[in-house]
């Protein structure tokens, strides 16, 4: 155990204990899905569309079926239930029937004795198409005369959030700034590709094992496509090699493919994606196009914000409606603005579907609003920090949806610490004062983040747990959220140990399995610590009451508060009166006391209404800000990020080392988003579906990272905790863009800001001069 942040009165939570899944990970014995083998196992490969938009004219699997080792080729006709993957709008077919909407869409499944044969045979399935005009970008999609690929207007979802009277304020405002911003795709690039095994059982049930974030989503999908009762489907997560949102929705497709093949062939079927296939077929961060306006008075008080926020959804809607919603709710930025008008639209194109990715629509809107805030500062001739200080959210502020912030708002503290730890005051100079070929710059971006699903997924925001103290005092826990590398099983163990009064290393969290706890929603939206943490707190608390009663009995006292130091229980009023944890457990078992309990937690009520676009969107918010220090070579336009200071108000750091890990990992994903990660899709075809063509940060690209944690407790969170997984991905990219501006005076309206983009801005400025 090492450093804690604030004064910590707990024996377990708040300490940087060693994560409990780490021995198997450093020794290589952890089993990821491709490491499992079942007797008689078959292998699946997917036949994919080779055109971006077309009617299927013919389908012929005769050649593939002749190949030695091929067992079967399955199509949509073989689906016993509904041929659709149940996301939100159910527009995504499990296997294409008469038409395809993107290059790479699944059409059929080949099942064979080896993965090599299956993949070879998949290429031999002959599909011919009548090609149709394809929609390559979202602007084209929204034109009245556009080809229609979804509904009668290509719009997956639209939200309007209106507060006050922004239009009127803009007309009379002292200062108005506006900008148009675009961001590109981002690929999750988890190191373990998608993979599933489906294992049919003699009783007609089916078990799915695999790499996933959301076992309950997969459960629903399998029931839907196989048309079997819910109690015949069991989903078990295997050790998962990174996810970041990429294993939220789309594993339902992979699992449903494996399940279909296993159900029909009556053999276990494994499907593991190649890296190229994973790039081409799995969801991505949405490209965005954002028009943004701020109005302010002469002193810098922002009086109005107007946003037109458009997402390119790709061919099917997956989770686009909720990604759009989160982005829209946060689109005006973490500021107290009385008049707001936000129009948010996600539309279809003939490209790979976009879906969940850490940040969930917010990195895009943050790029727009935080770039424009800097522009507003320039126009007002005040520092970007001062402008943020004047307008930032505090207790008493209201969000764009009219939600009053009544508690747990640490944005001011976060910005203060980030400024201090980045040496802002020493480094900041206005761009016109910077000289030389290589110029230093510093920039900041801030954000707020609604923890959990909030009103976007209200009925899903609950979680169950199961806690059982064994006879020797060790503890078994089941939760419905998944361990993805973020360390949630460790944090859950810490919470249980704290509540029960046992040592942390006595607690074991079982691999997530849908038969152990009720549907606990997805492992997304930085919700696991809050939701499953509270569910475990609930269950362990029930057990603790029984334990405390026994402690009093063993100490021969009638009443009194019982405390624990993780080894012994003692009386609060007389700490010398103590009994060993394990002795109490033994006594309880001897007296036939039940040391097992289920737990449950449901989030507080939210009031957001889709009709008015107003109301409380989330229970609570985490707040963050990042300062970036960059060096820009004004000749070559190369950017080197020197330092990132990223501060986060997360309520309470239950494990500071894991929190730092989340911050450091998130900011580096955001650095990639800012500078190098540039997926190219031309005429519907992905041109760089590999790590050679799509550049995620390597060890050579890493600046100094200073994670900063601020604790403004949330009263309903476990020990005050809010959430942290997503926020580190939201602000750094924009902080880098703002730092580039500060170094050079070059304002990018595009992410990623590659040397080519900067060179373009430089040339453009030249022409002006």
């Amino acid at each position, binding site marked *: 155990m090492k450093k804690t942040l604030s004064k910590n009165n707990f024996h377990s939570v708040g300490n*940087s204990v*060693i*994560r409990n*899944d*780490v*021995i*198997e*990970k*450093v*020794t*290589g*014995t*952890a*089993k*990821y899905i*491709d*490491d499992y083998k079942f007797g008689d196992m078959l292998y699946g490969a997917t036949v994919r569309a080779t055109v971006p938009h077309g009617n299927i004219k013919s389908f012929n699997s005769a050649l593939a079926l002749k190949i030695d080792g091929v067992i079967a080729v399955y199509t949509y006709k073989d689906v016993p239930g509904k041929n659709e993957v149940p996301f939100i709008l159910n527009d995504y077919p499990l296997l294409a029937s008469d038409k395809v909407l993107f290059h790479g869409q699944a059409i059929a499944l080949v099942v064979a004795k080896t993965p090599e044969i299956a993949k070879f045979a998949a290429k031999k399935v002959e599909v011919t198409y009548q090609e149709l005009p394809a929609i390559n970008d979202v602007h084209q999609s929204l034109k009245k005369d556009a080809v229609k690929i979804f509904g009668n207007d290509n719009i997956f979802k639209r939200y309007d959030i209106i507060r006050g009277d922004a239009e009127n304020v803009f007309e009379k405002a002292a200062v108005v700034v506006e900008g148009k911003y675009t961001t590109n795709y981002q690929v*999750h*690039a*988890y*190191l*373990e*590709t998608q993979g599933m095994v489906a294992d049919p059982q003699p009783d007609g049930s089916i078990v799915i094992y695999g790499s996933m974030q959301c076992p309950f989503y997969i459960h629903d999908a399998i029931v839907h496509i196989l048309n079997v009762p819910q109690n015949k489907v069991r989903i078990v997560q295997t*050790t*998962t*090699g*990174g*996810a*970041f949102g990429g294993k939220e929705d789309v594993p339902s497709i992979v699992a449903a493919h494996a399940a279909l093949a296993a159900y029909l062939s009556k053999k276990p079927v494994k499907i593991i994606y*190649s*890296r190229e296939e994973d790039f081409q077929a799995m969801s991505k961060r949405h490209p965005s196009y954002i028009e943004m306006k701020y109005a302010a008075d002469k002193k810098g008080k922002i009086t109005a914000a107007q946003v037109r926020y458009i997402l390119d959804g790709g061919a099917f809607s997956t989770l686009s409606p909720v990604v759009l919603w989160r982005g829209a709710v946060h689109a005006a930025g973490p500021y107290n603005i009385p008049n707001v008008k936000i129009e948010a639209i996600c539309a279809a194109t003939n490209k790979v579907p976009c879906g969940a990715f850490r940040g969930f629509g917010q990195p895009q809107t943050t790029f727009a609003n935080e770039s424009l805030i800097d522009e507003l500062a320039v126009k007002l001739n005040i520092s970007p920090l001062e402008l943020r200080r004047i307008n930032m959210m505090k207790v008493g502020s209201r969000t764009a949806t009219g939600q009053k912030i009544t508690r747990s708002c640490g944005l001011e503290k976060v910005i203060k610490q980030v400024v201090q730890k980045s040496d802002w005051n020493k480094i900041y100079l206005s761009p016109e004062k910077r000289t030389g070929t290589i110029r230093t710059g510093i920039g900041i971006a801030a954000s707020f983040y609604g923890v959990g699903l909030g009103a976007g997924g209200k009925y899903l925001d609950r979680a169950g747990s199961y806690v059982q103290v064994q006879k020797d005092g060790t503890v078994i826990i089941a939760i419905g959220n998944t361990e*993805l*590398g*973020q*360390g949630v099983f460790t944090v859950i163990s810490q919470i249980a140990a704290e509540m029960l009064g046992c040592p942390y290393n006595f607690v074991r969290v079982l691999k997530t399995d849908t038969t152990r706890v009720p549907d606990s929603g997805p492992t997304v939206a930085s919700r696991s610590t809050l939701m499953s943490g509270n569910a475990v707190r609930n269950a362990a608390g029930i057990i603790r009451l029984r334990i405390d009663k026994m402690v009093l009995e063993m100490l021969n006292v009638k009443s009194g508060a019982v405390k624990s130091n993780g080894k012994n229980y003692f009386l609060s009023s007389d700490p010398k009166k103590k009994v060993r944890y394990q002795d109490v457990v033994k006594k309880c078992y001897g007296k036939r006391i039940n040391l097992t309990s289920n737990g449950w937690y449901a989030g507080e009520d939210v009031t957001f209404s889709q009709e008015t676009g107003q109301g409380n969107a989330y229970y609570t918010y985490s707040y963050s800000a990042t300062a970036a220090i960059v060096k820009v070579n004004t000749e070559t336009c190369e950017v080197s990020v020197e330092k990132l200071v990223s501060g986060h108000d997360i309520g309470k750091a239950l494990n500071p*080392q*894991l929190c*730092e*890990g989340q911050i*450091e*990992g*998130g*900011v*580096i*994903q955001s650095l990639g988003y800012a500078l190098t990660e540039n997926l190219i899709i031309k005429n519907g075809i992905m041109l760089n579906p*590999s*790590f*050679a063509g799509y550049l*995620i*940060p*390597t*060890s*050579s690209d*890493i600046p100094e*990272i200073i994670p900063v944690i601020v604790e403004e407790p949330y009263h309903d969170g476990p020990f005050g905790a809010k959430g942290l997984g997503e926020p580190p991905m939201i602000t750094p990219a924009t902080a880098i863009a703002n730092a580039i501006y500060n170094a050079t005076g070059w304002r990018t309206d595009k992410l990623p800001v590659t040397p080519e983009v900067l060179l373009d801005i430089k040339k453009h400025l030249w022409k002006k001069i």
Partner: protein
Amino acid sequence: MEKNIKFILNGKEVEVTVHPVKTLLKVLREDLGHTEVKAGCEQGECGSCTVIIDGKIVNSCIFPVGQAEGSSIITIAGLCKEGELHPIQKIFIEEGAVQCGFCTPGIILAVKVLLDRTLSPGDEEIREAVSGNLCRCTGYSKIFSAIKKAAVYMRTKK
């Protein structure tokens, strides 16, 4: 055509009868059951499949097994001695340098090659040593600090 190929794997002699252009990764995982070697891209880009061959780091996913004839190969399973973790493994744990764990075996092996060469690596040497190993979770920060700490520990223990 299949061939008999012999090499030393984690100190023990093994023999396989496979086509010599089959990748070492597939032979290790499929024929020899060494699933601790991970397949991340099978294009030689991510380093998840890293093994040490005669003291050098190699992406086993693009290495034909025929070329391994007579060589000595170490996977992460060969790092523990009698159940005792290697100092690099211990320090990766302490420093929080592991998240999803998929890149971890490859990175630890790359670090071993570095620290076998020098116990006083500079910052640039450290970055260079793991630059062929992608990690999407950690932002590398805690990996760097673990490497530095492991070097100090191994230097003082020597």
